């Protein structure tokens, strides 16, 4: 299963440092996380970028990933 790791700010919502997920795409991931961790709402997650195995995906709506993927949510990177 893929594993989602939460930074300290998200940990407050998630209540844990990481969680294993069966999802293999972004939409399924949101659904699974919000069911497993109700405090981690779509409003919290959707403004964030998804990092898949070290690759930052700013707009992850159609992103998919492997069952072994390491996932992180981070703040979207601003333009300069």
């Amino acid at each position, binding site marked *: 299963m893929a594993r989602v790791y939460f930074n300290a700010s998200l940990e407050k919502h998630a209540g844990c440092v990481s969680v294993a997920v069966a999802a293999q795409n972004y939409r399924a991931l949101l659904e699974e996380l919000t069911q497993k961790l109700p405090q981690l709402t779509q409003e919290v997650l959707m403004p964030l970028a998804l*990092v898949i195995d*070290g*690759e*930052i995906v700013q707009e992850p709506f159609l992103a998919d990933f492997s069952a072994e993927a*390491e996932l992180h949510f981070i*703040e979207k*990177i*601003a*333009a*300069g």
Partner: protein
Amino acid sequence: MSEAREFKHIGQRTIRPDGFDKVTGKANYGADLSLPGMIWGAILRSPHAHANIKKLDVSRAEASPDVLAIATFEDFPSVNAAAQRDGTHREGMMDTACNILANQKVLYHGHAVAAIAARSQAAAIAALDLIDVEYEVLTPVLNIDDAISATAPILHETMMTQGLAEPATEASNVSARMELKKGDIEAGFAAADVIVERAYDTPTVHQGYIEPHATTVVFNDNGPSMIWCPTQGHFDVRARVAQLLNLELGQIKVVASEIGGGFGGKTTVYLEPVALILSKKSGRPVKMEMSRGDVFRASGPASASQSRIKVGAKMDGTITAMQATLHYEAGAFQGSPMGPGCMTVFTPYDVENLYVEGFDVVVNKPKVAAYRAPGAPQSEFAAEMAVNELAKKIGMDPIEFRLKNAAKEGTQTIYGPKLKVVGLEACLEAAKSSPHYTAPIPENVGRGLAAGFWFNIGGQSSVIINLNPDGTGTIIEGSPDIGGSRASMQMMAAEILGVAPSSLNPIVADTEHVAYNQTTGGSRTTFATGMAVVEAAEDIVEQLKARAAAMWNVTAEQVDFKDGVAQNLSGEDQLTLAEICASAEKTGGQISGRANINARGAGPSFAVHICDIKVDKETGKTDVVRYTAIQDAGKAIHPSYVEGQFQGGAVQGIGWALNEEYVYSKDGIMENAGFLDYRIPLASDLPEIEAIIVEVPNSFHPFGVRGVGETGIIPPLAAVGTAVAEAIGQPISSLPCSPPKILKLLMAAR
């Protein structure tokens, strides 16, 4: 793209396609468009830093025959009182609207209060005196310490701190808190032999783009309204104006003029929506310009910051723990780059135990905007200064110290993900063997060195390439060219198509003639729009093969295409790209390729800078006597432009470190709103910036590009700060290292 590749055009120093028009004055910038019947707009700005607007009376102005239209906050239908009453207001646009035209309260010196349009610029400016405003002056909050004190005046009565352990119950000037951690910070410091802990601060600075904001607009009831302006993102100008004025995107066309610098400061809107309101009301085209003073007082500078850094290491040079508390000024409305500041602060280091806490703080200064690698120069300045001090305490060379702790492939960052292949070690090695670092330090000179990290980003880009019957073509892109990207697009397309770059004319199209493109920024354009160019060119190659196949009556699979020539693999026939284009009418019409992508796989970038500084101990004046910028570009498409980005970032960072700062009176009045008093470095102030390009390819880009615009501004702050500290023998904790500050340090030491 991991293997070494030979390129025909990539890596060459071609003639820039926009150069001739720029040096001969033919290029059209933001203020260069005038239209028949055009009138002028002007803005009334607040003389106070913090005040309630008790009365705003425009009746005398309305009665003036010179005045053709007036705009106030109430003209924003998305957020005005009527929208609030009927529940249709867009809450998310409130801060943007209030920043453009104040709503009941002014929050910084120069905050726009109302606008007037008249037949001439002089008449518009004169008519501003006919607007009567009654202010109730409030105590301004001008720095982080004042803003977070228990007795601070509150700027926004409804703003609660987000991100606290428990939900906030009282209004605060701190809009948000962020926390990042890795490992066990206490155990990390307990394992350290030496610890450095210091506080640092950086001032409010401006991007210093030479071209002030300007716009010319025409409101059109029966078709798209037109906005002409210098911007880093004309699609986002369209979106913001549409949201503010309750228009559909299709009702607005934005044309990006040539741009005289942006550096992140031209990623939002100030004049454009106001001009469109004035145009709608007057029925005339409207032009507006900011003065230099307006640009300083009321556009978006970079955040001032306060940082507390603690770093611990063993005597063998292994860093065991790094900790930071970072405060960023957001200006009058929430939204500083505190987040990226927290994420980047320690990323150059592979350290087990990290802890970072960040705060976004509102003050009575203009709302900040992006400035090259937003948030990173401030936090990494503090971290790099502390790292240099720690290396010195341990007795290690600063490069060796960094090499021992350098981030590399597999390093887990504090913001979560592990780094892929990155070039920090390669940059440090290049620095170590550089002519600069291997040269002895001259007498009375201090030397400083620092590293920097920026993520780089991808995002949405759209490109069309049209070929003409003679084989020439046009590259139609939608990424405003702020740093030479048109040349890069030309070269990447030429590489794929096997033609001369000069045969392809790159243009930045308006919002109607190319699909959506994200704003130029975050070092995304050569990477992401470049990927779209490659994809569009590859689309054309497939079509060229099909057209040649049709000419030869074979299948496309029987055609190869290389170096601009199609080869019939079933025979010896050949057709050049130009010959295929010449026959295109017979084989299905003219040839055009396109790509609409959301680019992923941006490659992070690291840089290392070396600075030598001489200080006049009688006057405190500093002179940079030698400077070298080393950075991983992934692949330098056009090395001259890449070197230019390194040099530009270095110069802006040197200015930030040595002289630049917003100076306010105790009443919050900006006292140096002009280039005479706000001192950016001039060419005559600096030596040639030596640029060393390191190329560790990004495997996600067809040519290995990482992006180079941001990272170069990060290391100069600490490289300069450390060099000054070495030169005067005193620690530096506050930027800029201006002569009065240096003298004060020297006097205190005597």
